[in-house]
């Protein structure tokens, strides 16, 4: 065995001078490194990233993101990382109690509260990493084509703040009880609180949780109409983390009056911020929403391209290129004399319904009035959603295509009322064909809507509805199988007949080049389209 040389004092560098906190920092670095390597943390990280990859690459649902909505969707996914951090930090906090080293470590220089402080500091790198991930995700989404709006920094910071809360809470829990079971059970309780908050997406008390989930089935609103007190919520989370941290330090034996004062202040701050946070939306917001719903022209900007004018809320204005693609795809088969001199596309929001089953009808008359005042009568409505990745997006795309085609074919804008929304006969076939061939993706959008619908009447559109019969849809899809140029040429040639009210679907289909057998007046006995 190697004999120890009597070490001179100088060879072993002396430990750090007391009171500088260098020991705590060194321990925090070590614990932080262990935390980042912990399987629970890494697993949750991988799960979160895998989720994003799946959503974007496999399901392809990130096209046309609305960034001021995406920044809060990111929060619920980052909660996975918060959960992993919680478990890893909890295991580290109860490590001395679990492994029986507590009695030994009491004889070492760093006091128990200093060890707790180091563990609290070790959560910071995890929160930082989460912030980087959130930034990367939003950055990637912002780079997608058709991204609208801009993300809110406070919303993005809520994810890392939740990680901070999870970490500090785990340290506190580990100092209160040495049971291993407490960690997963506490985590499950936190998850329950979040899920229950998600069940009630319109209650203001859900802001007391870590994240406040919105009703995600609703189409996006312009950011000015959202009620998301994200800054206050971030403050709430940070104060909560501070409260947990100071409580943990006190529990670990730090007897400083300043820390007690800090705990009291942060608890008070949590209460105040929570109450402020949970206030219901101000009435001015409700009024603004109503105005934006009834008379959106005040808040919108318009851009003119050729004979088409597109009016949209400023954040969504870039979408007009997509709308233009669809509109022009429809207009190319309309003969010159049948066109209006000007077509307008105006963006509308859909009313926010608080009940899960309620369907509120769009105020079409108010829109018509507003259009008239703005000089854009006969505007076609389009919503805030778009894309082909989600059902909502597909419905929006197909719906706009159908609405524009209906406008062109019937010469009238959409009307409210079930009878007025119904298209029958040749018009219906022509509208559907025009919509289906307008741009790549519209046919799939229509098909997706059909697959999810039941009954003989199928409605297209998220803002306004155009209803058609199943038989007409079948004919239109058969037409879509024919080369578009041929059908389009025939459409242009026979435009007047095709758009006449009394042309039947079978006649229209034959005019467009489909071989339809002679049938006694294609309306079945349950048809809503009675012969006029």
């Amino acid at each position: 065995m190697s004999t120890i040389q009597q070490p001179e004092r100088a060879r072993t560098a002396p430990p750090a001078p007391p009171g500088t906190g260098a020991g705590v920092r060194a321990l925090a670095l070590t614990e932080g490194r262990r935390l980042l390597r912990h399987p629970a943390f890494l697993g949750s990280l991988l799960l979160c990233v895998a989720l994003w990859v799946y959503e974007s690459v496999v399901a392809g649902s990130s096209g046309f993101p609305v960034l001021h909505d995406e920044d809060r969707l990111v929060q619920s996914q980052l909660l996975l990382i918060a959960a992993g951090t919680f478990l890893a930090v909890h295991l580290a906090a109860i490590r001395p109690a679990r492994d029986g080293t507590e009695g030994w470590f009491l004889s070492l220089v760093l006091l128990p509260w200093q060890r707790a402080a180091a563990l609290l500091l070790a959560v910071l790198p995890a929160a930082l990493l989460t912030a980087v991930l959130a930034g990367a995700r939003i950055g990637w989404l912002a780079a997608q084509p058709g991204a609208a709006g801009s993300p809110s920094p406070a919303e993005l910071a809520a994810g890392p703040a939740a990680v901070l809360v999870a970490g500090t809470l785990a340290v506190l829990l580990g100092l209160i009880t040495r049971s291993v079971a407490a960690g997963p059970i506490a985590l499950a309780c936190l998850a329950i609180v979040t899920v229950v908050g998600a069940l009630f997406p319109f209650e203001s008390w859900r802001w007391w949780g870590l994240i406040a989930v919105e009703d995600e089935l609703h189409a996006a609103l312009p950011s000015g109409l959202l009620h998301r007190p994200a800054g206050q919520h971030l403050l709430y989370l940070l104060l909560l983390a501070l409260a947990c941290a100071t409580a943990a330090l006190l529990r670990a034996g730090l007897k400083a009056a300043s820390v007690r004062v800090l705990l009291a202040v942060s608890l008070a701050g949590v209460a105040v911020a929570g109450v402020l946070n949970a206030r219901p939306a101000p009435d001015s917001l409700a009024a603004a929403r109503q105005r934006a719903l009834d008379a959106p022209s005040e808040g919108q900007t318009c851009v003119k391209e050729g004979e088409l004018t597109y009016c949209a809320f400023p954040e969504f204005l870039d979408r007009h290129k997509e709308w233009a693609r669809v509109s022009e795809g429809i207009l190319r088969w309309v003969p010159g004399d049948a066109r209006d001199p000007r077509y307008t596309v105006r963006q509308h929001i859909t009313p926010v319904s608080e009940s899960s089953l309620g369907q509120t009808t769009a105020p079409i008359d108010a829109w018509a009035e507003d259009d008239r005042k703005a000089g854009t009568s006969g505007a076609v409505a389009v919503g805030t959603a778009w894309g082909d990745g989600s059902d909502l997006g597909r419905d929006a795309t197909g719906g706009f295509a159908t609405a524009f085609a209906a406008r062109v074919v019937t010469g009238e804008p959409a009307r409210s009322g079930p009878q007025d929304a119904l298209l029958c006969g040749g018009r219906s076939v022509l509208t559907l064909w025009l919509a289906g061939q307008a741009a790549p993706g519209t046919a799939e959008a229509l098909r997706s809507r059909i697959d999810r619908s039941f009954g003989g009447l199928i409605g297209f559109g998220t803002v306004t509805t155009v209803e058609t019969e199943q038989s007409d849809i079948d004919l239109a899809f058969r037409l879509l199988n024919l080369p578009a140029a041929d059908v389009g040429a025939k459409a242009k040639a026979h435009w007047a007949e095709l758009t006449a009210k009394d042309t039947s679907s079978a006649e229209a289909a034959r005019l467009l080049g489909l071989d339809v057998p002679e049938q006694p007046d294609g309306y079945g006995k349950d048809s809503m389209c009675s012969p006029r």
Partner: protein
Amino acid sequence: MNPETTTEAAPVPSAAAGEAMVQVTGLTVRYRRTVALDGVTLSLGTGVTGLLGPNGAGKTTLLRALATVLVPSDGSLSVFGRDPLEPRSRQEIRRRLGYLPQAPGFHRHFTAFEFVDYVAILKEHTDRAARHEEVRRVLDAVGLSEVRGKKLKALSGGMRQRVALASALIGDPELLILDEPTVGLDPEQRLRFRELVAELGEGRTVLLSTHQTEDVSALCHRVVVLAAGRVRYDGSARGLGELADGRVWFSPEREPRAVAGWRTGTGLFRNIGAPPPGAQTADATLEDGYLLLNSAAESGMWPEPEAGTRPEGGTR
């Protein structure tokens, strides 16, 4: 029976020249209704001191009090001339202290290097390079350099014990408190351990609590025997062994008169006490002296001090 206690004039390195590293005066520790330590008084200087005693004698309690982990109920304690009850002095003491507890726990997922490094950080060695150098040094000192990178759960019990010993050696402490450090070590490892402690004992104060009387006789100049919270003997190791001189004999049958006796593997009984005339005597070891002392104390027969010598500690 009058076993003698002698405090030899020959080197018993305790309380040398007024520079006692550790001074314990009337230390009392009570746990609810049990008295773990009852008025213990001793002082320690440089060198290796052994602490013997039956289970429950208060050895671990005494060591924990000296390691500043335990707050005594009564009495005073001075380590390096400072009072461990005062927080700043306590931290100062802890910087110069190395403590190896009984049955130390381990973080099983740490590697040997990581664990000793962790303890080094807890001892506020903040300079990373110097700290790693120190960790390598202590692991080398206990002979574990090859298994530095192995996880603790993959090491044998003896290796883990050596890791704990290495952790106690971090920072080259002036006072080493080792509570049953040779548990789980095989004889060869125990040999190395003895060499290590012997070298450490030069210029440092080492207090070693153990059940292995061979370790005490091999290493320690001075022995303190605790029983029921009191000091029964405080003197040289040789003196303890000499207590049983001429009082150990073999017999073919169990001797009811013996203070302590057991059957050896050969079938003969080894007895300690007052041998009958003509009995086959054996050489007394330190263990014999210890057993004699303990049983005499238990049976209430406190050794009568000869004139001029006094057993240190204990009040009767």
